[in-house]
């Protein structure tokens, strides 16, 4: 199954990369480089596992399209048309083509022409409003999360369309991809009448708190089912077993007192000591890990999660695949970009 990629951003590049992971033969068509918002390392990482081919113009893309099952692009409304490629021309060459069009807000509609960015995607899709502390402005997520999510959802739609076997055009919007991460918030609003706020959805139990030597994720379970009798014994704080802390609503009403009891206690042990104790008690504590912690994670290393990838300018460690199939980590993305002329590669 051959897939062509005309993307300039992480969202499109990641969508086609996932198709390569699923076994498609993906060719990145090199025409005009990457989007200015994308850094070189992220770009190279999102293009592992593909071959690259320089194309001069629309005519050379059309020559390749008859042979392809799918074309992925993320240039927005009118983007491929500006190159001289229309959907009609593509379909004339290949009626069964799956055309995946990623954009900031969608291919049509009152805001289709609006410009976007990672931060703007998160804002328009509703996730930014919910992230951060209630007494500070909303704050963005880790780099490229809207782009990665949009790419993932576009890859799901594309893979499904390839399975269905019928030519179609997928109109994937980054705003709406972020909305897919946020769906409980509008639902809460339409049934309760209350607009979910930052921090408001999380203060029914401890979350990320100070331990003796760092941070620990100290949530005892799911908020509504958390057993505070057990948690009281676990933390050795008898007051936590009192009626007022038994429910999520009760804890929210007595939140300051809850924190006055719990926070000093959590500082009495190291993160590792809490994790060991929590595992014995089957509570859902967790470490708060950094990127370098993850690169050193014995669990990830033993499960074959990482590999070194040689990019044009450097060698980096990257995750190979998000899952294991039949006991083996898929190896298809082990390679850097192949066959691309060096002068076309983005400079770091």
């Amino acid at each position, binding site marked *: *199954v051959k897939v062509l990629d005309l993307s300039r951003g992480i969202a499109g590049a990641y969508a086609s990369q996932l198709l390569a992971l699923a*076994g498609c033969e993906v060719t990145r068509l090199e025409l005009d480089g990457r989007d200015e*918002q994308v*850094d070189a390392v*992220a770009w190279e*990482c*999102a293009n592992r596992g593909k071959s690259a081919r320089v194309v001069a113009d629309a005519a050379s893309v059309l020559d390749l399209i008859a042979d392809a099952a799918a074309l992925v692009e993320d240039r927005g409304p009118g983007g491929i048309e500006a190159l001289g490629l229309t959907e009609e021309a593509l379909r004339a060459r290949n009626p069964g083509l799956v055309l995946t069009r990623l954009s*900031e807000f969608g291919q049509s509609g009152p*805001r289709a022409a609006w*410009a976007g*960015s*990672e*931060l703007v995607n998160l*804002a328009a899709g509703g996730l930014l409003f*919910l*992230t951060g502390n209630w007494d500070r*402005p909303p*704050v*963005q997520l880790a780099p490229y*999360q809207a782009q*990665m999510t949009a790419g993932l*959802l576009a890859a*799901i739609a594309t893979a*499904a*369309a390839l*399975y269905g076997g019928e030519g179609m055009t*997928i109109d994937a919007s980054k705003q*709406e991809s972020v909305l897919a*991460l946020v769906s*409980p*918030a*509008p639902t*809460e*609003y*339409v*049934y*309760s009448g*209350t*607009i979910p706020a*930052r921090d408001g959805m999380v203060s029914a139990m401890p*979350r*990320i708190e100070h331990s003796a030597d760092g941070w620990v*994720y100290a949530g005892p379970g799911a908020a509504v089912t958390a057993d505070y009798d057990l948690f009281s014994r676990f933390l050795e704080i008898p007051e936590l077993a009192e009626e007022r802390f038994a429910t*999520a609503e009760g804890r929210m009403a007595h939140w300051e007192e809850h924190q006055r009891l719990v926070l000093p206690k959590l500082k009495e042990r190291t993160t590792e000591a809490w994790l060991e104790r929590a*595992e014995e008690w089957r509570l859902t504590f967790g470490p708060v*890990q950094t*990127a*370098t912690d993850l690169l050193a994670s*014995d*669990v990830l290393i033993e*499960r074959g*999660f990482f590999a070194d*990838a040689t990019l044009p300018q450097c060698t*980096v*460690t*990257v995750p190979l*695949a*998000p*899952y294991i199939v039949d*006991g083996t980590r898929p190896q298809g993305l082990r390679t850097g970009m192949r066959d691309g002329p060096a002068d076309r590669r983005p400079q770091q």
Partner: protein
Amino acid sequence: MQTTTTTITTATEPHLPLRGVTVLAWEQAVSLPMGTRLLADLGARVIRLEAPARGRARPRHLGNDLGRNKQSLSLNLRDPRAGEIFKRIVTHVDVVCENFTPRVKRQYGLTYDDLTRVKPDLIMLSLCGYGQTGRMSERPTFGPGIEAASGHAQLTGYPDQPPTRPGTIVFADNVSGFYAAFALIGALLRRRLTGKGSAIDLAMYEACTYHLTASLAQASLTGADPPRRGNGDPAALVQDVYAADGSERWLAVTVSAAQAGALGEMLGCAVDPDTLSRTLARWSTERSAEEGARALQAIGVAAAPVQDARDLLLDPQLRHRESFTLVPHEQPVNGYGAHPHAASAFLFAGRPRPPLHESPAGGQDSRALLRELGGMNDAEIDALVADGVIGVAGPSAGPAMQHADPESARRRLDWRLIAAHDSDPGRTLDLPRSTPAHSAVTEVRA
């Protein structure tokens, strides 16, 4: 024994690409239910397997984000007879997926090896916190713990503040669910080429870490962890979230170097980043986030209001794309016969989003499914219902249901009604007092 007629509600839109695929989803919590919801959005028939409910069932509408367009089969797997029924159904499905700790499927004798004996080309996905192997495989986990473990919390927040969780409490669940859906469609494509099924081992820990590939690659280059970056971005000249006119109204702005001149001209200020940002901060408080975004977009600068849940429902772009679908209720809820829920996550050009059917009551489709796929007759089913092996839908419950009246069944809470509450200074919907607080959140946490 009461016999109920069961309507089988599955998405049957002819254009949906996964039509004809049947998925048995032995699922709980949020992660896998989100993944199989996406498969249902794409036309797969998803049979949700759940344990027979104890006591009164939860109100159905609370499950609509995850359970809509699925069927419900209720089996008590503690009884070996239920395991036999499970296997009989497996012979008719393409995919089995589950999200319990690994020992659960071993305990019930329902591992991939057990199931491929009855269905050799089965695709099976197992989703859990830390994977099927390794020293942490049996560790029970919820999404928020995974956000912390997989690096997201450490990379989110202000440089002077603690690690911060991504908003909503289901970020890690949803991301993991999306990867589950992708892995399963990949396995379907593979089975078509090779004729073989496969076993997929998906860890929430790994899915969410994978979503940070760029940050991991960067850290592997430098050997150091990047600081939390607040709302900044090194690729932008200016990027931040600015307070707009009103309470909790914000404007998100990204300015590229090439746009500095045009922005400086509009704001009447110098074009260095500090001056532009300071001037934007003052300028944005003088207008609504909406007006600010429109003015900036008019000169090509990326900007948008920081939308809350209500804004999303009213957003003209999302309305144009029909990103929300009204889900009709069996009985009115809070005085309305239908409420909006996130539509199918996929838009195929020129084709409507598929209609959404309310999340089934637990065991609602047990009888029909066991007749169709289990090869059982009514007498056999009744006997096993009596023994508690099979669950069938009981009365649904919840304070919301007490407000049923014929008038309200016809009222639909569409965006126009939501917009009509514009004048309310508290910006809250006018709902009956008995509305359960945090009802939807309660459901996603459960």
